[in-house]
């Protein structure tokens, strides 16, 4: 009887790693949920990481939010002017910013700034054996490095997102005020009059998911970095690209779900 050769790959050498990668990512995420509710919680490290994610991103988020508010208002005005409906600007901008732009802009900025930072930091720790050093010192590196960072991004990014929305609305007000006289209070009142609880809820929920994604992808890519310094760069780069890609997919899904709830 002829001996059949052992099949080394299910599909091919290039395709197989994609499937094993998905399985590895699933295992990594499952491990996070197993570890996150177990002691010790390393609260001090969670606070440190929240500071890194939150306070250190505030300036960038503020500037970006402010510019988004101005630009979006500038772009929307001509269309509304055609219908003589410029008084609807605050409501339109309010809905657009709270429902979509605030969380999305914050998530994309954080994917670039925080996600790459986490990917590079953990990648560097991995290739210089610092993660192994924790392991041999009887410290659970997954819990100390991954769980704390993912919790920090998940909790901090919704706060940043709300802050970004407020600043973007202020940017919008500045633009509106430059064209016509209006008070800040009446602008905010008008903007919030059309925003429902569901809008705020979906905005915060979205940001929670984005925060989790950014932390998880950054940690996963960094924690599994290989090939020395080249691997660190690759981890940082992939952390940003994959996080952004996932954020857009999540945006589509969450918008569908929110709309379904809204019109149910």
């Amino acid at each position, binding site marked *: 009887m002829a001996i059949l050769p052992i099949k080394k790959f299910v599909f091919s050498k290039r395709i197989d790693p994609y499937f094993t990668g998905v399985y590895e990512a699933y295992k990594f995420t499952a491990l996070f949920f197993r570890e996150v509710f177990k002691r010790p919680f390393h609260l001090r490290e969670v606070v440190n990481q929240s500071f890194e994610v939150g306070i250190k991103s505030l300036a960038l988020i503020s500037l970006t939010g402010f510019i988004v508010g101005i630009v979006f208002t500038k772009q929307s005005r001509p269309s509304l002017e055609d219908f003589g409906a410029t008084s609807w600007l605050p409501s339109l901008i309010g809905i657009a910013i709270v429902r979509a732009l605030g969380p999305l802009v914050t998530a994309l900025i954080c994917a670039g700034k925080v996600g790459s930072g986490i990917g590079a930091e953990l990648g560097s*720790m991995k290739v*210089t054996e*610092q993660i192994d*050093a924790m392991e*041999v010192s*009887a410290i659970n590196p997954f819990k100390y490095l991954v769980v704390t960072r993912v919790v920090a991004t998940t909790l901090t990014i919704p706060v940043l997102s709300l802050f970004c929305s407020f600043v973007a609305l202020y940017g919008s007000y500045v633009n509106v005020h430059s064209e016509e006289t209006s008070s800040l209070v009446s602008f905010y009142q008008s903007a919030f009059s059309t925003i429902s609880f569901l809008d705020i809820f979906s905005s915060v929920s979205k940001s929670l998911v984005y925060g989790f994604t950014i932390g998880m992808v950054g940690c996963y890519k960094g924690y599994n970095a290989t090939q020395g310094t080249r691997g660190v760069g690759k981890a940082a780069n992939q952390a940003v690209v994959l996080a952004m890609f996932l954020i857009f997919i999540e945006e589509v899904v969450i918008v569908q779900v929110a709309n379904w709830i809204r019109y149910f």
Partner: protein
Amino acid sequence: MEKSRHIIIREEAVISIQGLYKSFGDLQVLKGIDFTLFKGENVAVLGKSGTGKSVLIKIIIGLLKPDRGTVNVLGQEVDQLERRELDTLRLRIGFSFQSSALYDSMSVYQNLAFPLTMNVKNLSQAAVGMAVEEVLEAVGLKNKIHEMPSDLSGGQRKRIGIARTLILKPEIMLYDEPTSGLDPITSAEIIDLINKVQQQYNTSSVIITHDLTCAKNTGDRIAILLEGRFLKIGTFDEVFATDDKQVKGFFNYNFIQ
């Protein structure tokens, strides 16, 4: 450089390895390792690069899992342990990395205090400070307490790496290439430190090296690891006097180097 005088208890094995195999993909690295480390003993494992020396000690501490064979450390089968049991065992083992693996975002003090504060609960700041100073004194770098790892020389980083393992008062020390990348004078200082640690902390040690001077001056026994197997284990003179062509070839290569 003076070899330390210490008592070896041959009735008590702290590490016992039998029939150990390990491969990475198609590459078979360890091909049936049998090895015993006795209490109070230093064994230097010599071999060319890529022969699996570091893999061996990473299996001993549970960083890698063996394909086959048993690894018994301080009476426990390493690959059979649950995470918590393995962590408890690891507290009794010190591991000094080839690259030192200091946490580069932490100062020397924080590097040394970190394993202690993470593993010993309710320790006062003063107690941590005293423990840090004690190990820094042992490695002769008390004046570097507030420096960052990036400000230290290669030899100093190695010393701090050893100090970080000593802070948990290990019973076994595993050194991965302690003198690699160092000049002869700094190498000699590290060799003295390994012997000093052994006397001061009563450790049993496995020293992975390809440096004959380091092996001769630290090891009570020398084990030659070539092509995934121990070709010869014995005192330096016994191993040096062997007729085995591969072992002789290894020694000749090192002398030429």
